């Protein structure tokens, strides 16, 4: 068929040089490297702040912080936009239009590597230095680690998250369980004891182990194993670290003990929104769950109909001495490199991340782990023991996070996909699956470089 080809060639000739000119401009782009503003001299400046919080108590708390900030800086006005997903904010930042945000926060530390290396977020080191803030003496080491990439401090921690076990004390009593499990063998036994079948489904499930069960993602479980993700030369070592395989095997066995994948998935499709009072733990659909410290605030607010408590999530039997650890992550905040209001933006970021009262107040309001050394030791911090569990997890030296990577969380998606395939039985050869995923991760990182 020669005609369409000819028509394309004709078209190319018709549009000719105009197209080439356009192409040239499209290639170079018109990226402004950002700029500063007159906020320091007291002129009125409005900055836009995008965040991902959506629950009412959370949006209220962040607004309260913003209100205080605006009282302290009457000339800086903050336009707050909530419930923004990471790929949306990233798309907007890369596009760099007039509506793009100045200050951005993200729940996911996964993207720090991407934001820093692509220079989507500005390096804050010069600003920290200018204001005489020493990051190492201000922020806990683990949190500082996940907010930077290859020397660029393009974000700062804005509260941290640690993961632990939530358990339904009423259900525990009914099943004759007296204390929260500390090892996976105890945990598995308790999960089975707490499971009440209902025909083909469940009246109550001990624990939802599948990777789609909200926070029960591979990275959270792997945190209990202390697994490493990358070895020398930045290559994925999930195929060689035996702790990774051990996690996959444990999870798959637990699925079998609780009734099998199909039955669990069917039950899961009736779960309510994770970030609402319909969370399956809050409704009593599951008796135990792995979740972050923020849930303590939501459960208290939603007034559940049973007694509950928190504890560190169990650890593998052969690592029983590490009990008390947990997966560690946090919210990060940064400044768009394209922002023309860097000075005002920095004032906001500085206030939210380093002002002890602001950090403690915010941590108490939404029950997150505070993210400065001063705030962690603050007497004003909430003394609720269920919340304190997570402070201790955050302080535990064995608690670890997922490392930053140049292509963001892509390696975690690869591991997750393997998890989905393995838990459902689609992939039965775990060693081959891990090897293939490791290769996939390495190729993706290579492509992003």
């Amino acid at each position, binding site marked *: 068929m020669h*005609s*369409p080809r000819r028509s*394309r060639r004709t*078209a*190319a000739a*018709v*549009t000719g040089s*105009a*197209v080439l000119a*356009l*192409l040239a401009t499209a*290639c170079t*782009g018109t990226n402004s490297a950002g700029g500063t503003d007159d906020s320091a001299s007291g002129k009125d400046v409005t900055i836009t702040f995008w*965040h*991902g919080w959506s629950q009412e108590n959370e949006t209220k708390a962040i607004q309260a912080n913003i209100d205080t900030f605006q009282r302290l800086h009457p000339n800086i006005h903050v336009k707050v936009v909530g*419930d*923004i*997903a*990471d*790929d*949306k904010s*990233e*798309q907007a930042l*890369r*596009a760099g239009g007039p509506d793009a945000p100045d200050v951005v*926060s*993200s*729940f*996911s530390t*996964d993207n720090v590597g991407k934001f820093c290396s*692509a*220079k*989507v977020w500005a390096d804050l080191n010069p600003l920290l230095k200018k204001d005489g803030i020493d990051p190492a003496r201000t922020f806990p080491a683990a949190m500082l680690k996940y907010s930077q990439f290859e020397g660029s401090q393009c974000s700062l921690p804005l509260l941290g998250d640690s993961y632990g076990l939530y358990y339904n004390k009423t259900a525990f009593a009914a099943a004759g369980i007296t204390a929260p499990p500390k090892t996976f063998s105890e945990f598995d036994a308790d999960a089975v004891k707490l499971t009440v079948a209902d025909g083909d*489904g469940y009246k109550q499930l001990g624990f939802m182990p599948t990777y*789609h069960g909200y926070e029960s993602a591979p990275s959270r479980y792997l945190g209990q194993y202390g697994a490493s993700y990358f070895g020398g030369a930045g290559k994925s070592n999930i195929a060689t670290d035996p702790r990774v395989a051990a996690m996959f095997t444990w999870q798959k066995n637990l699925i079998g003990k609780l009734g099998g994948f*199909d039955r669990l*998935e*069917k*039950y*899961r*499709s009736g*779960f309510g929104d994770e*970030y609402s009072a319909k969370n399956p733990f809050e409704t009593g659909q599951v008796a135990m769950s792995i979740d972050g410290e923020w849930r303590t605030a939501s459960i208290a607010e939603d007034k559940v109909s049973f007694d509950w408590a928190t504890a560190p999530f169990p650890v593998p039997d052969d690592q029983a001495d590490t009990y008390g650890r947990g997966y560690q992550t946090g919210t990060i905040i940064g400044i768009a490199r394209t922002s023309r209001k860097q000075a005002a933006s920095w004032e906001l970021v500085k206030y939210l991340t380093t002002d002890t009262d602001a950090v403690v107040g915010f941590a108490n309001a939404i029950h997150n782990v505070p993210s400065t050394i001063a705030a962690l030791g603050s007497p004003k911090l909430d003394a609720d023991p269920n919340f304190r569990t997570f402070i201790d997890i955050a302080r535990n030296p064995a608690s670890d996070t997922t490392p930053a990577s140049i*292509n963001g*969380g*892509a390696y*975690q*998606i*690869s591991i*997750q*996909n393997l998890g*989905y*395939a393995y838990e*459902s039985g*689609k992939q039965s050869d775990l060693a081959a699956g891990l090897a293939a995923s490791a290769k*996939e991760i390495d*190729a*993706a990182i290579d*492509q*992003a470089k």
Partner: protein
Amino acid sequence: MAVGSTAVPAALKRKHRRETARTLAFLSPWLIGFGFFFAYPLISTVYFSFMRYDGFTAPTFNGLKNWDYVFNHYPFFWQGLRNTLWLVVVMVALRVAFGLGIGLLITKLKTGVGFFRTAFYLPYLAPPVAATMAFAFLLNPGTGPVNHLLGDLGLPQPGWFTDPSWSKPALTMLAMWGIGDLMVIFMAALLDVPKEQYEAAELDGAGPWQKFRYVTYPNISPIVMFAVVTGVIQTMQYYTQAIVAGKVASGVIGGSGQQFEPGYPHGSTWTLPQMVYNLGFQRFDTGSACVAALVLFAISMAVTSLLLRRRSGFLSSED
């Protein structure tokens, strides 16, 4: 122009020039559109497929690296191609057969034609996102009415959009629900079949199947061909229903820090057009996204050329 010889009188030449100007004037909106929204982006897509560009820092030449990545390392490429092929074969075949069946059914009806025609046509009007949302609810394994009914009847209850072996059949069912366009086309074609041919066939003692085989089908075969080819082209572009069904069934729709698993469940609803979105707007790997776009372009144009060849009627004109 071939007539531009010196023998042509000046007046005729002027007329000719005037006509060319007039033609260009009438075509001008589209000429600009063609250059700007077709030719330019295509050339640019080819250009970017050889560049490393994250949409932020200036693009740099990357050789064949993007092509190598997409074909040999991108974990979802072949899966997307396989799924698209599955949909092209199964979904298009079933849609055409079902559309023809419904069209035939309507022409056989004697009572309530208006009601049935409207009933059969209505789902076609449902916006794709809304229709997909409705089906995701109806087919929700734990709580949806369809499995509830199947359970009451003692039948097996599939996982539909949450089960990799049922997700494409569920999408096919959704596509068959919106059969209204094909039904109308077939209905019109069936009514155009000359009645005399049926009468002649009846005189020869032909049964219903023979009448269909030797009278109906030869008359409507160009329309069947048309339905198949346009169906293939539509299926190449299959995007909205697949992505919405995957997001709704996986429960991951938005929110900071949540990563949507492409083609949930297990990549079974992952199609070629989604690749462009994933690479370009989630991974911000412009070069690889352009490679995926060019693959999509090549396949679409191959199918289109088939359409242009088989349906010369497309190009017919009155002189």
